[in-house]
């Protein structure tokens, strides 16, 4: 019985090919645009997630407090409240995987006739782990380099290009503030961070060397920043609380006193960026869904026309023994077939255009099985939803009236 009805629905679709094709086109455009828009939206989310992961994951940045001298207050990081000893103490906390004290600033780099201004980061080897920074060639400096304040440097790709051009920087010497540093490693490429700053325009040197030879701090044991990496996203709240409590205790702060340091959470920035792209992809999906809705209304429209045109046929079917539910099923099946066929074509076109976009520019496109399934389910739902009213109308026809219909 079902097979017979399927065959009949197929014939009914073929009876007016242009009309069926145009009705289907509505679904094709609807499903195609949903698939394409979801692919673009998910691609954008993926791209942002990539950028965020270059900044390092599950990171906190501790910034030392401000100082005030003669009514002039420095910004965060101006005071000497955080120390290397603080950083070492935090490293002992549960859930902390990497801790790197950081002293950084912009300095002029000189190599032979070339000079270039870049960010100089004085830190410990843990910094590379916390930021998930790879070494493209050469090797990183070690803790003993930090202890003995050796003049070695790791250079980022942008800084290297500007100072050395096509030459290999390994083993060459650059001068920062008149001090020579031997380049022992070239950092892997990271690209821009969320602010648009070039992360590769950087030179990383041992913390102690930076403090003594580059920045010349009057408080050698203190640092402006400490980067703390939690072992997992779940561990972050415990790490934050533990580290604040530990620092307050170490800095001998009493109950009512404010912290003499600031805690920044890079995850918050990452979350807001991810949220932005998520909203964007929802928006794209919503716009595309409108065209799917319009496609559904097109099906309903054509099915209503079809019911009116075939009133006599419905009367004949009823006279020879079709029950109301047989008529209902017949028209519902037709609507469903149109929408599912339209959906399949739309899927193919949507995926094809996503692949074409991917091929002609570098835009990241992600086609997930879930989005395809959702589009398919929605199309089937639309077929039933918009097919039901016309089918119901057909089934409720009075057989005598229907037979008399010309």
């Amino acid at each position, binding site marked *: 019985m079902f*097979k017979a009805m399927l065959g009949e629905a197929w014939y009914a679709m073929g009876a007016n090919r242009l009309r069926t094709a145009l009705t289907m086109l509505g679904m094709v455009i609807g499903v195609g645009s949903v698939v394409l828009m979801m692919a673009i939206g998910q691609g954008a989310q993926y791209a942002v997630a990539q950028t965020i992961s270059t900044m390092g994951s599950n990171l906190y940045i501790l910034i030392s407090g401000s100082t005030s001298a003669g009514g002039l207050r420095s910004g965060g990081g101006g005071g000497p409240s955080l120390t290397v000893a603080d950083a070492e103490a935090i490293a002992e906390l549960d859930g902390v995987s990497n801790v790197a004290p950081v002293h950084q600033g912009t300095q002029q780099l000189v190599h032979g006739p070339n000079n270039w201004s870049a960010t100089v980061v004085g830190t410990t080897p843990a910094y590379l782990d916390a930021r998930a920074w790879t070494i493209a060639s050469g090797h990183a400096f070690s803790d003993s380099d930090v202890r003995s304040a050796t003049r070695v440097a790791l250079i980022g790709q942008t800084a290297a290009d500007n100072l050395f051009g096509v030459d290999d920087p390994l083993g060459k010497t650059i001068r920062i503030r008149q001090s020579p540093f031997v380049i022992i490693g070239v950092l892997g490429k990271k690209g821009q961070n969320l602010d648009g700053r070039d992360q590769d325009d950087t030179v990383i040197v041992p913390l102690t060397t930076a403090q003594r030879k580059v920045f010349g701090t009057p408080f050698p044991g203190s640092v402006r920043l400490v980067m703390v990496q939690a072992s997992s996203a779940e561990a972050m709240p415990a790490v934050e609380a533990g580290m604040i409590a530990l620092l307050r205790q170490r800095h001998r702060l009493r109950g009512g006193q404010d912290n003499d340091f600031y805690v920044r959470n890079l995850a918050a920035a990452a979350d807001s960026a991810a949220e932005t792209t998520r909203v964007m992809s929802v928006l794209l999906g919503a716009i595309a869904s409108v065209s799917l809705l319009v496609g559904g209304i097109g099906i309903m429209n054509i099915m209503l026309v079809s019911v009116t045109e075939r009133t*006599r046929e419905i009367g004949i079917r*009823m006279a020879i023994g079709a029950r109301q539910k*047989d008529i209902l099923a017949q028209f519902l099946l037709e609507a469903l077939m149109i929408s599912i066929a339209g959906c399949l074509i739309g899927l193919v076109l949507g995926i094809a255009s996503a692949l074409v976009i991917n091929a002609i520019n570098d835009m990241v496109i992600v086609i997930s099985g879930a989005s395809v399934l959702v589009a398919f389910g929605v199309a089937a739902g639309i077929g039933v939803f918009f097919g039901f009213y016309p089918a119901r109308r057909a089934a409720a026809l009075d*057989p005598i009236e229907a037979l008399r219909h010309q």
Partner: protein
Amino acid sequence: MSQPLIRVAGLGKSYRTAAGPFPALRGVALSIEAGEFVAIMGQSGSGKSTFMNLLGCLDTPSSGDYFLVGHDVAHLTQDQLAKLRNQTIGFVFQGFNLLPRMSLEDNVALPLVYAGVERQPRRQRARQELARVGLAAYAESLPSRISGGQQQRVAIARALVNSPQLILADEPTGNLDSHTSAEIMALFAQLNRDGITIVLVTHEADIAACARRQVRFLDGLIVSDLATPARVVG
């Protein structure tokens, strides 16, 4: 103890019109035994079409009783009525009413689809009925490719395919020339001899003469109910 195939008593049907209710049937009583060949006659507006719609379970009466093979039609659900139309009654219409997109075989097989018969036996029985009306060679054709008389034969095959006890024919020769009409009436006479009860509506006396009993309607009432004088039917 045999009960009549059709028994109606006090059957009334009125339609709502702008000028108040219009009684199309005003208390009709009639019994038709299995195996009869009855012609319902009357002018247009006499109520004969309304009566046929009620007999065919396409409509429900406003008053009175209608028993079809013992079923009290007034108390059946829509689905049960559909089943009666499918398995107990075969319809033949004035306008043939074949579905134009389907082959003749599919047209004839359609009642079997609604009866839930599988594809193979469906085809087999459809072919059988087409052969019975002499059109087996046209099984794959579309209705538009054959003549009116042939279309009516296909319609009769469709009416027969579910082995009904009763065939209701509403002006079956109204759209046909006299020669073809005679052929169709001969077919009906043959079916009647095979034991099928036939009730046909007509306003042509020579068509009615083919039946063995003639019931005449006027203004919603039966005015005469006579056996046809015996004669040889071609």
